[in-house]
């Protein structure tokens, strides 16, 4: 009996992520969802600019590499040109919540029938640890060496809370991947975000609270503790919007 194998929707290319980085777990969960729904042959993924830029080599489905932040616009084009295909984006917080904020908000408010996997690691990973729109108050980064000063640099953007205030989006949930229980929950949410698209329900975004041990300057296990102690209290996990569930309750 096979109890554990590599998802088919991942290629054999070795991942380039740092040891202990949670990008790898999230890739796996996305690939498992694609496998379980049996949609790999009609899925097109959109990779971001960020540490996941080379996701196009890792997912076995057709892939597009978008410009920084523009993945939801590219995904919109793909979905509208090919409504039968399954389109997802995989984006970091610098990509999605800074340069790509306009694309994100407008895709959400249009309720584009796409799936967005949003990896929030509170930092610009790829470029060496600059402050992101999601960096926590007081967080030390390359560009906030004395800690993020909210009087100067403003407050972190809570993407799930913000987007769920819109009438457009179908489903928004924040999950984490810092322990087994959370990974299982994240899997459920990601699967649902893809299933929503298969069922034509509309815009589904899963915010995954992630870690960046390298740029946080921590060991992988310390980084996971930091997720639990600092990130999750600021970014509470849970379902922020689920239009179909709300309808059932009416």
């Amino acid at each position, binding site marked *: 009996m096979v109890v554990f194998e590599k998802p088919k929707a991942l290629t054999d290319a070795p991942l380039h992520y740092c040891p202990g980085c949670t990008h790898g777990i999230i890739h796996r969960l996305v690939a498992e969802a694609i496998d379980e729904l049996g949609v*790999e*042959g009609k899925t097109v993924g959109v990779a971001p600019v960020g540490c996941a830029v080379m996701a*196009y080599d890792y997912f076995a489905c057709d892939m597009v590499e978008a410009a920084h932040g523009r993945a939801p616009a590219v995904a919109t084009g793909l979905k509208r040109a090919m409504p039968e295909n399954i389109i997802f984006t995989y984006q970091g917080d610098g990509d999605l919540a800074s340069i790509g904020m306009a694309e994100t908000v407008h895709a959400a408010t249009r309720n584009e029938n796409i799936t967005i996997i949003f990896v929030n690691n509170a930092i610009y990973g790829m470029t060496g640890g600059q402050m992101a729109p999601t960096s926590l108050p007081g967080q030390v980064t390359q560009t906030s060496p004395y800690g993020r000063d909210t009087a100067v640099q403003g407050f972190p953007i809570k993407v799930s809370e913000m987007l769920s205030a819109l009438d457009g989006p179908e489903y928004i949930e924040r999950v984490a991947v810092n322990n087994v229980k959370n990974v299982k929950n994240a899997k459920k949410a990601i699967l649902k975000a893809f299933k929503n698209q298969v069922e034509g329900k509309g815009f589904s975004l899963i915010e995954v609270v992630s870690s960046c041990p390298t740029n946080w300057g921590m060991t992988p296990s310390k980084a996971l503790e930091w997720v639990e102690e600092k990130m999750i209290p600021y970014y509470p996990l849970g379902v922020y919007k689920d239009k179909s569930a709300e309808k059932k309750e009416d």
Partner: protein
Amino acid sequence: MTSSSSPGISLKQEGISYIAGADLPALIVNVQRGGPGLGGIQPSQSDYFQATKGGGHGDYHLIVLAPASVQEMADLTIKAFDLSEKYRVPTMLLADGTMGQMMEPVELPEIAPKESEKPWAVRGTKMEREHNIINSLYLKPEILEKTNFERFERYKAIEENEAMYEEYMMDDAEICVVAFGIAARVSKNAVTAARKKGIKVGLIRPITLWPFPKEALKKAADKVKGFISVELSMGQMIEDIKLSTECKKPVELCNRTGGMIPTPEEVLASIEKLAKEAK
């Protein structure tokens, strides 16, 4: 296909560079207005440099077509799609505010839809082939250099085969007016008026701005006494005229900018001045 007017086209330059880098076909229509900045909303040709020299970042070209009538707006749109698909190079239809606003009779040609093979397209693998990747990222410089070399091989073929221009009264011309789009129509009137005054003048109207009709200009340089570049800008195409003719003959500029259009009288005055000087 996408379209806008100058400031919107600046905004699209990021995407255009990525399209060029990923070797995707696309048509971009720029109905130019005066700039820089928010500029104005009247006709202009001041995006010539941006359109013909790249526009966004990186080593690339667009195929640039310049219509001079509503009919050509239609015909060149069809041509632009075909060229773009043939070479996998984004193409720009570079019009101006007058082309965008004027009314003229136009015959829309019957065209049978063409199914072109796109084995590179991302429509899903159907689990029948390896995955396709639309990408402009090459972290290894050797590979990026190779893709740029390969793209420029295609550009070379485009330069050799696709340059388009119209000649008007050039057979015995001693002065050559060069103009595209609305400026060419104004210039044609001026050329006709100058001919009535006995001045041997003709017009070369580039229809493709990239590739620029270099050969036609080079040939003209051997027989005319001088050129006049008529433009709705501070003089941009004039540089390509000088390059194509290797500055063999003087090139004058007759221009208005900021949304102003030179009148046939202004162009005629320019022709008369050069005719006198060239004697």
